[in-house]
């Protein structure tokens, strides 16, 4: 996630200091991707170095206020008009786990899938509860937060559909190869050592 672009986009609304930026970020995205204030200030320092923001003095209470520059505004515009890169998917622990579960001997893949589906379903129920609560708010920030929740909801749903799909594929593979699965080397060894 690009903290840099997010902070720049928030600065489009007017000059802000670090704590304000963090608060506004979290108002729109919930506690989904928490930012620590140190990260905010480091990013602001880099943005200033790159000429995308500039110091706008002190707010009178000792907070250093930043303002977006023209170059910064251009970068925000570019960010909003460029699709997010999908070419390099982030490393997905679950996909890797399943890929290994079907190949590593002695793993009950069916159980791995079922347990994961139940866990993901519980997470999906939690997101939905948060959504029901958030839906009462009318402000633009509440709307932003429900959209973030929807993203989590659709993500979890996609994962469950994929798990259903994996389960169906495995069943079909078992039907096509009905002979009993060969004993795994580890199991044979365990048996031999008894």
């Amino acid at each position: 996630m690009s903290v840099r672009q997010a902070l720049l986009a928030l600065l489009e609304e007017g000059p802000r200091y670090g704590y304000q930026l963090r608060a506004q970020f979290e108002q729109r995205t919930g506690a989904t991707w928490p930012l620590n204030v140190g990260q905010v200030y480091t990013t602001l320092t880099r943005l200033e170095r790159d000429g995308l923001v500039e110091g706008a003095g002190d707010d009178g209470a000792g907070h250093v206020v930043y303002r977006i520059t023209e170059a910064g505004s251009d970068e925000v515009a570019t960010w909003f008009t460029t699709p997010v890169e999908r070419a390099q998917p982030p490393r997905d622990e679950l996909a890797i786990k399943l890929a290994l579960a079907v190949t590593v001997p002695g793993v009950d893949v069916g159980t791995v899938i079922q347990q994961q589906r139940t866990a993901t379903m519980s997470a999906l129920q939690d997101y939905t509860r948060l959504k029901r609560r958030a839906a009462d708010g009318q402000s633009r920030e509440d709307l932003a937060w429900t959209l973030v929740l929807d993203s989590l909801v659709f993500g979890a749903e996609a994962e469950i559909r994929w798990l259903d799909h994996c389960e169906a594929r495995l069943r079909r593979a078992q039907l096509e190869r009905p002979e009993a699965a060969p004993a795994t080397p580890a199991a044979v060894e365990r048996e031999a050592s008894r």
Partner: protein
Amino acid sequence: MTAVLQLREVTRVHGAGETEVHALRSVSFAAHPGELVAVMGPSGSGKSTLLTLAGGLDTPTAGTVTVEGQDLAALGAAGRARARRTSIGFVFQDFNLIPALTAVENVALPLELDGVRSRTARATARRALEEVGIADLADRFPDHMSGGQQQRVAIARAVVGDRRLILADEPTGALDSETGESILRLLRARCDAGAAGVLVTHEARHAAWADRVVFLRDGVVVDETGADRADALLDAGATQ
């Protein structure tokens, strides 16, 4: 708290001999007042079978189905038909609207059959159509409506009046995601108001509105989320 719907070791076998199909195998299941339960599972796993048994549209091969403490088998056909008009709302997978009746007449029908005066029944039906977002289509015939609109008429018919048990088989199948969500809000609101609901769905996003999600495979319950709440209720019932 007593369950609105209780299935005890229910088995349903279709056909016999070679062609025998075990649609459900000794399934126990309950839905309490205020509770929405979702049922998920692959095609052919027994979801519609479970729902039709719960709604008294079919009778089990073994086991019992009770609705508000009444054994549906003991009620007889006439008693079950009465229960379906008054306390059980059913959304069919294929809508089951009557083509010769307009939307509002379809929705008002169960009320009218139960002796509610026509005018009152229609007014209540119009409100239900409003709740599902198609008040403007009240006087149309099903054939002149889109699939999603027909589905919403079927939902209005299931929630109209004071139904204690709402059974919905894929009620969002023909709907876009926004409309589907508004239907889930409606079902959720009915349950929050004290009804018990059972929702069959393929969409995890919709199942997530439920308090509990039950997974069926080959006629057997294989897993369940949020079972703690149900256990707590059962424990509370046991200590009463």
